[in-house]
Every structure is written in structure tokens, then in C-alpha cells.
């Protein structure tokens, strides 16, 4: 008699078929290589990236001859010298790093209460609402969202219309540093909340109640218990936001109006406007270097947070 569906779900049957097929394709005795086989695609991808990086490093060591538009055959560090000597690039570097720091701080400040309420609320409707509000922006790409802000914050936009109603003259809300940072914070918030939520879920409500019964008011509970216990989430969220902000292209390009470039914009210009591949490559490596330094510093200071996959905790 064939087992009924309830006793033997279709999912199990499907697995049986797949396992039989896999057995034929990949005999059991090779099974100690299975792990590596499953890693292979990802390793391949990383390898390709590494090759690209090496090529970029190579390109960064050849300068562009502006008369012939040929790259020099000789190796030199001139591109790095140019990048670090010219005020423009230093300003761009500084703007990106400062921006990344400010955006990360603001994003974490906003994401923490949002995530906390989402995790702790007793109302499942509120939780759903917060989740939907979090995911909706994901369906709208970064560029479209930036254009949305152009419309809302523009001279004839919604915000200035509203300001006009209360008698405030039109304000220039776009194409400045705060506008770029504002757009970036808004863009990063969902990432940060999604990275924080699991860490907050992992803090038992009972632990907070315990802090209360031991004499801590909510502020001291937050400071002495919730924040330290949420640290892995804060570190993980912070790392994601820092790296995404440091390398962002669309927000500075659109909301900065060309005057508020980040490193990625400068690199783009070198590769696609002035065609100075060498300088572009040098800037790229500087970006990779700065990013690695920041991430490395955070790792040493705070550990890898949730990115350590729970191994560092317990």
C-alpha cells in the first residue's frame, strides 16, 4: 500500500528523488568533497573579484600621458601622488568618510528604537505595519527614491509648498551635503533595522524585567542591559551601513547635484569621463583600503558582531 500524503509528505518524496539523482551524479564515496563543491561557486566569485582587484592595482601603477592618451609602460606611484596631492580628491575622501560616520550614527540612532518597538510590541498589527513600512522602500530602487526626494524637496516641491503656507520663503533643500546625508540615512534605515532585529529578539524580555526588579528604571535598563546585549546587532548593522555609505554613488550624484561627490563618483568620473584609468584605479584602491581599515578597526574594537555568526558570543 502506498503511504498516504499525511504520513509521507510530497516534500519527502521530492527529496528521495533528488537524493537518488544526486547519488548517480555524485557517488557517496566522493562525499568528503561535498563541502568544497558547495563552496566552489562562491570561491570562484571571490577569485574573479580578486583577479579584478589585481588588474586594478596594476592599472593604478601606470600613468596616462595626456598628449597621446596612452598609458605609460613604466610603473610609478604618480597616480597615488596625484590623488593625495590634489585638494579635490582629499576633499572627496574626507567628505565620504565623514558622511559614512554621520550617516551610520544617525541610522543606528533611528534604527534602534524602530527595531525595538517592532520586536517588543504586543500588537501584531503594529508589528506588521512597521515591517511593511520597512520593506516597501526595498521595492523602489535607490535611484527612483532619490528622484522622489528631488520632487519632494525641490523648489516647487511639497516641503516648500507647506513652508509657503506658514509664510516661510522657499528654501534650498537640495544639492547640498545635508541633503545627501538625509537621502543616505533614509536609504540605510531598513538595512540597519533588519540587521538589528534578530539581535534584539535574542534579548529575553525576562532579562529586562529582571533589571527592573533589581532597581533599574527604563533608561538604566537600556544603558546597562539592552544596549550591551544588542551590541552584536549594532556592530553588524554599523558595518553594513558604513560600507554601503562609503561606497555609495546614486545619492551623492542625484541629491548632491554634482557638487557633493563621494569617492565612488570621483572614480566614475575618472573611468568614464576623463578616461584616466590609472587615477581611477588608484582612487579605487584607496577606497578599498579605507573601507578595510574601518572594518578592521571595528572588528578589533568590538568584535565582528552578528557577522561572527554567533561563534564569538555565547
Amino acid at each position, binding site marked *: 500500500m502506498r503511504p498516504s500524503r499525511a504520513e509521507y509528505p510530497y516534500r519527502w518524496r521530492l527529496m528521495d528523488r533528488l537524493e537518488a539523482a544526486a547519488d548517480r551524479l555524485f557517488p557517496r564515496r566522493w562525499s568528503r568533497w561535498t563541502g568544497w563543491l558547495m563552496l566552489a561557486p562562491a570561491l570562484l566569485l571571490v577569485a574573479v573579484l580578486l583577479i579584478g582587484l589585481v588588474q586594478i592595482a596594476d592599472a593604478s601603477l601606470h600613468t596616462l600621458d595626456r598628449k597621446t592618451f596612452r598609458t605609460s609602460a613604466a610603473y610609478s606611484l604618480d597616480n597615488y601622488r596625484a590623488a593625495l596631492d590634489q585638494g579635490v580628491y582629499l576633499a572627496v575622501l574626507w567628505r565620504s568618510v565623514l558622511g559614512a560616520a554621520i550617516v551610520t550614527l544617525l541610522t543606528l540612532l533611528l534604527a534602534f528604537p524602530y527595531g525595538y518597538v517592532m520586536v517588543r510590541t504586543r500588537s501584531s498589527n503594529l508589528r506588521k505595519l512597521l515591517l511593511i513600512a520597512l520593506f516597501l522602500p526595498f521595492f523602489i530602487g535607490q535611484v527612483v527614491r532619490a528622484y522622489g526626494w528631488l520632487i519632494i524637496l525641490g523648489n516647487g516641491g511639497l516641503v516648500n509648498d507647506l513652508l509657503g503656507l506658514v509664510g516661510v520663503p522657499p528654501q534650498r533643500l537640495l544639492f547640498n551635503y545635508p541633503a545627501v546625508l538625509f537621502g543616505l540615512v533614509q536609504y540605510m534605515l531598513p538595512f540597519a533595522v533588519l540587521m538589528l532585529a534578530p539581535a534584539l529578539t535574542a534579548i*529575553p524580555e*525576562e*532579562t529586562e*524585567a*529582571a*533589571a*527592573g*526588579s*533589581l*532597581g*533599574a*528604571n527604563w533608561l*538604566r535598563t537600556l544603558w*546597562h*542591559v539592552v544596549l*550591551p*546585549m544588542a*551590541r552584536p546587532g549594532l556592530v553588524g548593522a554599523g558595518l553594513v551601513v558604513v560600507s554601503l555609505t562609503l561606497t555609495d554613488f546614486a545619492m551623492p550624484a542625484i541629491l548632491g547635484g554634482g557638487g557633493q561627490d563621494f569617492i565612488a563618483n570621483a572614480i566614475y568620473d575618472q573611468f568614464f569621463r576623463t578616461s584616466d584609468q590609472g587615477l581611477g584605479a588608484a582612487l579605487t584602491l584607496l577606497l578599498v583600503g579605507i573601507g578595510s581599515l574601518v572594518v578592521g578597526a571595528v572588528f578589533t574594537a568590538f568584535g565582528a558582531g552578528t557577522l561572527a555568526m554567533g561563534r564569538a558570543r*555565547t
Partner: protein
Amino acid sequence: MGRIRQQGPQPMIRDAANAAQAAKAGPAVSVRGVDMDFGAGPLAVADAGFDLARGRFLTILGPSGSGKTTLLRMIAGFQTPTRGEIFINGEPVSKVAPHQRAIGMVFQKLALFPHLTAAQNVAFPLKMRRFDARGIPARVEQFLDLVRLGGLGGRRIHELSGGQQQRVAIARALVFQPDLLLLDEPLAALDRKLREEMQLEFRRIQRELGVTTINVTHDQREALVMSDEVIVMEAGRIQQNARPVDLYRDPANAFVANFIGVTSFLPGRVAPGGLECGGILCPGTPRQALAAGTPARGAIRAEQIRMAADGAALAGLDFRLQGQVRDAIFEGERQLYEVVLPALGGIAVQVYHHDASDFALTAPGQTVTVGWNRRDMILFPAAVP
């Protein structure tokens, strides 16, 4: 209790007025007509009321879902009663936040702070309650010693065994000298040996400090071993509030009789001198006066039924009856028999037998004589109130 109270800095939470208040003879805790309604389903706690004198150890005992935790959380201040009032040291507390009540609580899952060391966990309430910082290390040391964790203060929580973590939680709840200690099944997760050790340990510490304590458990042994008083709860209602001995000897109703110990019930009707069951008069005593002919149940504990292969050995008992052994369960220090009584319509009773030399002699199928005394069977009205 003197040793601990005299050493170390005095806590600042008690001003002179409070001290005078504490010296008064009134109950440390009193619960008056408290209901808790979560909205869905019946009341989680219904009309709970009791007084607990200073320094006493009370256990709330009941099956899962009977409202024990809810009652405890209301006393701790994590939940507000929908009706009634709770008084601690004579003061109504429904408007007092948990962190403003001087209550130490040990949670079921301990709720220790994993990012702090054992010593820091114990220091936490002192810091939160603004004790003099200079006195904190000595005091932490003293309480770690009290729970026999001296020298382990520097360990992180995950570097301690389950029983050691337990002790940290106890020290943390006691170190600020709370008026009241609340325990929500903190021993439930431990293995039996360690649990029994911790029960005695707890009792020792509680006596040493003299702190008023309310413990919640569904382990009847724990309730009987540790407590001065036991409250039995079922479906949100307090069924009985009594000393352990009285609870055991004189259960207030069939639920309590069934919940404590191993109890057999005989169905029948009240008759003069006992219970008429299957045409036979089984001697027993009604708990309250019951009219003859009322449907009733006779409750008798497994260790109060005697059993022997030879009926003559039971000659001194008020009542004797033949039966067949249906099952024999070896429990180590004793053996539990299930004996079918054909004369009572095939009802089975459970019988404890402690004579180890006899264990092998009585096998399923064998005919035996069982018997008991009149005072050992208690009659309750058949419909459980």
C-alpha cells in the same frame, strides 16, 4: 539572620519611617480579592487572597496554566491586577513600578546578564539602587560566599554550570536585602539530585537571612520540603492554603487530595461510618458533614493502604478486602502496586509497599489482601466544587 545584617554597609533604601513600618507586626504581603483578566478565556487568577507573615516561606503550587506565574508577576509589579489590591508591608503597591518595590526575584530562566561577570551580576542591583560604591565589592563577596561561590566572581555567566548560575541568580536577588523574595520555578530546569540539593540550600539561606519568600512550583515535593505554608492553585483559584503537613493530612477538596501524593478514589454514596461502594461499606471519614446517600468519592493515599499476601497479617485494620495485583512498578526505595478490587466492581487502587525483602514476592496476577483504617479515607462530595 544577624550575621549578614550586621556586616557591611546598611542599605539606604530603608529610611527611618520604613524601618518603623517594617518593625510593625502586620503581614509582609497581603493579597486581597485579586483578579487577572487577560481578555481571552477565563480569568487567569480569580479572587486570590492571602496574608503572609514576615520571614515566612510560602510556596504556590499548582498544575501548568493554573495562574501561579501570573499571581507572582502581579506581586512583583510586572502586571497590574484587573481587580483587588496587593499590599506589601501594609502599603498598597498597584501604582508602584517594579524598580521602586524592594523585591528580589529569581526568574524561571534566571535572566542573568550574559555580558557581565558573576560578581558584576550580583553588584548590579546595588549599583542600580545607589548603594555606597565603596561598600559594594565587600558586600558582593559576602553574598557570593553565602551561596558558596567564593572565588568564582570573575567568571562570565556562560563559564558557570547550571547550579552555579542558579546561585548567582539567588545572590543577585538577595544582595540588596529586599523585603520580599520571589522565586518562579527557578529549580525546574535542574536535574533531580541537584534540585534536591538546591532546595535544602535555599532553605538554609532563607532561614539565615530571614527574608519573606514566595516560591512558585508545580513540584509537590519541593513545596512540601521547602515551605512554611503552601497555597494550592487550580484554574486561577486558590484551592487551599495550609502548612505542608496539614495539606498532606487534611486536603480541602478532591483536587488537592489528588494533586498531592499518589491518591486513589473510590466512587459511591455516603453511608453511616463510610462510603457505600458496590454494596460494600468502606470505612472512611467525610471532610465536612455530608448527608447519607450523597454521591461522594473516597480518597485514600497509596501509603495508607496496607497490603499482604496473607490476610491475617492485616488483622488490626478497620477494613480488609481481597484483590489481584495488576501491575507492579519498581521505584527503587519502594514499590507501587496497582491492585484490582473485584468486590468493589473492579476498581483499581494504588498501594505503596516499602518492605524491600518483599518486592520480588508479589507479582502481577497474584491474589493479595489490602486494607485501611477509617481515618485514612477521606470522603469528598462527588461533584468537584
